[in-house]
């Protein structure tokens, strides 16, 4: 029970202090809107189903990776993170509380592109439940990338830089806008080593069943990647921060 109180309060503190701040909410709304508008103005006749998963992917990926990396690095720098490390809760629970906020923020970021696509462009969704699940998976995996980055970054600007180092290649390699099948074979190998590819594939299935990999396999691989990223990050934290 005491652990649950700690978990809930760390999560709600993060939501209040970081994610529900007006600049971040507006980021979550403006960023996907700007992307849709850009696509619309550029092509006028674009196929919404083609770019819809990419916009969702971009919004979630950009919202979560840097947010978590920045908030943890910021708290590390101001030493308030020490306070959490010194509390009688396990590091796993603490980190789960920290990432939950970012995951929810990622899911929130996906709402606007979904609403615009469905209600303005009349896009149809094949399976809304699995779309929600796909967005959750993408948000989890992107957040865990953010966590992984936060362990290496000492300064907030480093966290941003490292996030970009991961995010930008993923836009092209993970099937957000460029279909993986059109990539050269050596890039396709890299694509399949990135978990975002599987989350995007899951989202594509939910929208128009244009997935390349079976959902079960995607789920298994995403779970494995999540566990790996989570425990590698925990291991690195113990090694670097509790040395």
């Amino acid at each position: 029970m005491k652990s649950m109180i700690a978990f809930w309060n760390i999560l709600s503190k993060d939501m209040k202090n970081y994610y529900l701040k007006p600049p971040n909410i507006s980021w979550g709304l403006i960023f996907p809107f700007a992307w849709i508008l850009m696509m619309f103005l550029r092509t006028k006749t674009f196929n919404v189903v083609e770019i819809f998963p990419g916009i969702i992917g971009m919004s979630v990926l950009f919202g979560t990776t840097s947010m978590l990396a920045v908030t943890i690095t910021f708290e590390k720098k101001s030493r308030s993170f020490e306070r959490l490390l010194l509390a009688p809760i396990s590091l796993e629970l603490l980190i789960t509380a920290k990432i939950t906020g970012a995951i929810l923020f990622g899911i929130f970021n996906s709402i606007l592109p979904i609403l615009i696509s469905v209600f303005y462009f009349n896009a149809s969704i094949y399976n809304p439940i699995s779309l929600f699940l796909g967005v959750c998976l993408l948000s989890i995996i992107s957040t865990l990338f953010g966590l992984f980055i936060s362990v290496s970054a000492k300064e907030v600007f480093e966290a941003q830089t490292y996030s970009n180092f991961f995010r930008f290649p993923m836009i092209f390699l993970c099937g957000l806008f460029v279909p993986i099948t059109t990539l050269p074979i050596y890039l396709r190998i890299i694509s399949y080593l990135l978990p975002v590819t599987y989350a995007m594939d899951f989202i594509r299935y939910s929208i128009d069943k244009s997935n390349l990999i079976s959902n079960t396999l995607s789920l298994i691989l995403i779970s494995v990647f999540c566990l790996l990223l989570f425990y590698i990050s925990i291991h690195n934290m113990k090694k670097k921060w509790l040395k």
Partner: protein
Amino acid sequence: MNSIIKVINLCKEYNGFKAVNNINFEIQKAEIFGFLGPNGAGKTTTINMLTGMAKISSGQIFYNNQDLTYKIKIAQKVIGIVPDESNLYDEMSGFDNLCFCGSIYGMRKKERETKANQLLEEFKLLDAQNKKFKAYSKGMKRKLTIAAALMHSPEILFLDEPTTGIDVVSVRQIRNLIKELNEKGTTIFLTTHYIEEAERLCDRVAFIMGGEIIKIDSVIRLIDDTQTNNILEITYEPLQLNMKDFINSLQINFNKISVSIKDETCIKIISKEKIDISPIISFFAQHNFYILEAKLIKPSLEDAFVKYTKIDITQMKKEKEKR
């Protein structure tokens, strides 16, 4: 046994460098224990090992006679930590900061709100409870940081340089708060570079240098051990008198003392043995001196620290202030 912390052969090694080397000490319940040493002596590393912020290389740590060397999470329930920098959340109010700090120890809403109000009142911060932490003065920030560490009513409080860089009034308040807390039964582990602060507050102190504890004892004993001579200083109103003749007659009358003139209104009397003040004062009175003050000069904890560590204390203070 009434010890709250017992440390046996504690070591910390970083890439072959021994930051803490085989230290042993015991802290009794409800005592104020000072940990003094220059920069890089191993104070923070020791605190980090005791609180779970650093892994130990070897040795044992006991809390309440229970070996918690590798179970520091259990010990964290009974310890409160005040770091050398205030590390609460800038965007949160004083009250919310306290409540949050209580919540990470599993305190329920009502319980933590009651405790937060009680602490804000005790620390005279009630008027500022709704202000954001970033709007607090340095002294207020320090007080709130101490209050935050007390939210879960810890048995032992680690205070790392609690009065560094804050105004005199806040320093006084914080020192009084430490005393009050201790009187209520909280054990205090204090590191400070203000040795006079340690002298005023601590029951026992340890001097640490180069990762090793050089001396550990009660403040009184450390000071007594430093005293090699008894010194009496007598201050008087200036008098038209040949002081050299007076000093000679003083030394003839009291043959076990040596006398020197400190300045034109003060004489210093040194003796290997205890000085009986009354006949000396009478002697002064017979020679028409108007005595303003007569005091026995005792060595300070700082003298004891210098004696055992051979450290240039002014240099040490300057380094700390720079930090």
